[in-house]
C-alpha cells in the first residue's frame, strides 16, 4: 500500500490514464487524417477508392519514404539533415554514371550506398567534434552532394542495364495485375526495420534520450557522440538507398532530381507526429506522413484541372495545423507538470 498522500495518489492515477492516451495522440492523429483524406477522395472521385491507388502510393513515394525514415532519426535526436535530397539525386547519378562506364549493379549500388553513408559519417563527425549546428553542416553537405552530382554529369544519364528495369517491374502480386512493386517493398521493409531499431535497440533508445535531453543523456553515461555520428551515417545511407530506388523507376540519373526532397521529408516527419524539438516520434508515423503527402498529390492529380501549386499550399497548411497542434499538446503537458 502506498504511503503517498491521497491527493498525490489521485493525481498520479489520473495523469497516468490521460498520459497513456496522450502518448499515442501524436501517432493516432496522422493515421486518422490519412483515412479522412482518403475518404474525401473516395467521395469525390469514382476510381479513387481502390487498391491500385493505395499500392501506387507506396510505389510513387518510396524514395521519399526511405529518405524520410533516416530523417526521422535525425529529427528525433533533436537535429536535422538537409542533405537528403541532394544525396538521393547524386546516388542515382553515381549509379547511372558507373553503369554507363560498364560497372555491374553489384558494384554500382554499393558504391552509391557508400557515398551516402560516407558523407553522412563526415557530417556527423563535424557536428559532434566541432559542436557545429546541424543545420549549417548538413546544408553544406547538400551543396557538396548536389555539386558532386553535377560534376559527375551535367546532363541526365540513362541507365540501360536490365537489372534496374526489372527491379521496377517485379513485385508481390496482389491479384489481377496489381502488385506491390520492389520500390514499395523496400520502402515498407525500411520502415519496419526502422521501427525495430527505434523500439528494440539500445541505439534507437539512445536517439530518443538524446532528443529528449542531451545533457541528461550525457550525464547518464550514454554515448552521445557515437550515436550522433551514427544517426547521420544512417540518414546518408538511407538517402542513398532512396536514390537507388529512384533509379528503378526513373531509369536515369539527372542532376536536378529530388529538388526540395528534404522539405518534403521534413513535412512528412512532422505530419507523422514527430516533434521537431526532438524526443518524440516514430518511423511508422513518418510512413503515414509520407502517405498523406502522397494521397494529397493523388487527389490533386485526379482533379486534373487544378494546378499543381495547390499541393504546396495544402501541404503547407497541413504542416501549419499539425505544428499548432503539437504546440498545444506540449503546452498542456507542460502545464500539468508545474
Amino acid at each position: 500500500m502506498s504511503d503517498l498522500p491521497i491527493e498525490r495518489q489521485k493525481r498520479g492515477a489520473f495523469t497516468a490514464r490521460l498520459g497513456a492516451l496522450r502518448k499515442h495522440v501524436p501517432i493516432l492523429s496522422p493515421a486518422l487524417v490519412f483515412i479522412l483524406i482518403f475518404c474525401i477522395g473516395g467521395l469525390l472521385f469514382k476510381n479513387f477508392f481502390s487498391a491500385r491507388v493505395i499500392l501506387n502510393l507506396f510505389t510513387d513515394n518510396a524514395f521519399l519514404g526511405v529518405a524520410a525514415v533516416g530523417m526521422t532519426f535525425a529529427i528525433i535526436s533533436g537535429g536535422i539533415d538537409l542533405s537528403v535530397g541532394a544525396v538521393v539525386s547524386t546516388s542515382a547519378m553515381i549509379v547511372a554514371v558507373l553503369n554507363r562506364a560498364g560497372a555491374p549493379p553489384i558494384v554500382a549500388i554499393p558504391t552509391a550506398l557508400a557515398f551516402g553513408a560516407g558523407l553522412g559519417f563526415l557530417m556527423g563527425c563535424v557536428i559532434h567534434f566541432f559542436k557545429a549546428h546541424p543545420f549549417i553542416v548538413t546544408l553544406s553537405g547538400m551543396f557538396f552532394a548536389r555539386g558532386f552530382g553535377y560534376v559527375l554529369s551535367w546532363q541526365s544519364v540513362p541507365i540501360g542495364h536490365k537489372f534496374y528495369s526489372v527491379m521496377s517491374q517485379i513485385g508481390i502480386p496482389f491479384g489481377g495485375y496489381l502488385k506491390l512493386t520492389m520500390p514499395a517493398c523496400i520502402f515498407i521493409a525500411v520502415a519496419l526495420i526502422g521501427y525495430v531499431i527505434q523500439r528494440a535497440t539500445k541505439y534507437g533508445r539512445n536517439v530518443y534520450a538524446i532528443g529528449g535531453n542531451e545533457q541528461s543523456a550525457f550525464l547518464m553515461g550514454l554515448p552521445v557522440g557515437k550515436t550522433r555520428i551514427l544517426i547521420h551515417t544512417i540518414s546518408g545511407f538511407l538517402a542513398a538507398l532512396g536514390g537507388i530506388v529512384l533509379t528503378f523507376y526513373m531509369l536515369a540519373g539527372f542532376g536536378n532530381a529530388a529538388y526540395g526532397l528534404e522539405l518534403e521529408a521534413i513535412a512528412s516527419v512532422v505530419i507523422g507526429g514527430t516533434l521537431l524539438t526532438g524526443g518524440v516520434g516514430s518511423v511508422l508515423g513518418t510512413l503515414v506522413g509520407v502517405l498523406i503527402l502522397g494521397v494529397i498529390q493523388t487527389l490533386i492529380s485526379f482533379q486534373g484541372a487544378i494546378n499543381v501549386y495547390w499541393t504546396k499550399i495544402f501541404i503547407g497548411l497541413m504542416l501549419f495545423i499539425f505544428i499548432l497542434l503539437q504546440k498545444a499538446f506540449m503546452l498542456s503537458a507542460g502545464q500539468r507538470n508545474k
Partner: protein
Amino acid sequence: MSNKEMGAQTGEVRQAGARNINPVVWSALSLAVILLFNLIFTRGFFSITIKEGHLFGSLIDILKRASPTLLIALGMTLVIATKGIDISVGSVAAIAGSVAALVVRGGDITYLQETIHATVPLFPVFAFALLAAALCGLFNGFLVSFIGIQPIVATLILMITGRGVAVLLTGGYVLNFDHARFEFVGTGYLLGLPFPLILAVGVFVIVFGLTKLTPLGLLIQATGGNTTASRYSGVNTRVVQMLVYLISGLCSGIAGIIITSDVRSADANYMGLWLELNAILAVVIGGTAMTGGRFKLFGTIFGALIIQSLITTILTRGVQVQFTLIVKSLVVIFVILIQSERTREFFAKSRRKITSTG
C-alpha cells in the same frame, strides 16, 4: 606560485583566453584574397570602362548580381541575431515578384500568357508587392514570437506554402511584361552604378541606421544574447522578434521586385529558389554567429560579396558551373571550422602552453 595566489590574482578581471580576431576582419581579408587572386590571374578583372553612360566590368557585374542576396542577407542577419532563422525568404521574394508582375500588367490576369506592354504608375506596383512581403514577415513573426514555434519550423511553413501562393497568383504561367520605368529597377543605372546596387546600399543604410540610431540594435543583441535576462530587464522580446521578421520579409520583397524587374518576368516556380541558403551563408561567413547576439551588418556585405565573387571567379576561370556548389560547400565548412569553439580552444591552449611559466 600556489593555486590560491594564482586564483586571487586572476580574481579581478579575466582576460580572454585567445585573442579573438574580429570576424568581420576575417571576411574582409578573405574577400581581399579572392580579389587579389583575380588581380593576378584574371586579365581584365579589375578593368572598369564606361559604356552607354554607365560603369561596366567584372567588378560591377559582381556588385549587381550580389544585390538580391545582399538584401535578403541584411534582413537575415537581424533574424539570426535573435537566435532565429528565416528560410521563407525565397518564397517571399517570389510572392512579391509575382505581385509586382501582376500589378505591372495592370492587374490583368486574363491573358496570362501574353506579354503586356504597360504604363501602370510605379507606386502601386511597389506598394502592393511590399505589402504582400510585409504580411509574410508579420506572419512569420507572429508564429515565432506569439505562438512560440521554433523559427525553422515557422518559416518552413511559409517557405512551402508561399511558393504555392506565388504560383497561384501567376496562374502557373510565366508573366512577361514590358514596362520601361519598372524595368529600370532591375536593369537601370544611377550615378553610373547598377540600380539594384543602389537599392541594396540604400536599404543597408536604413537598416544600419535603425540599429544604431534607435534602441533596436541594442534590443536585438540583448534578445538574442540572453532572452531571459532581456525579459528581466523589461525588454519586449516579442515585439523585437516581430520586427526582425518584418524587416526580413520587406528585404525579401525588395529582392523579389529587383529579380522580376531584371528579367522582365515573374516565374513563380523558380524565382528566388535557394536564395535563403546563399543569404544564410553570407551572414555566417560575415561573422554573425548562428547562436545569436552580436551581429555584423558590414560582415554580411563582405559575406555576400565573397559568395558572388567566388562564383564569378570560378566562372571566369573557365571552371565549369557544376563546381560552384562544391566550392560553396567547402567554403562553408571552412568557415564553420574557423568559427567553432573547439578551434578557438585549440589555439588558446597552444597559446597558453607557450606563454605559461610553468
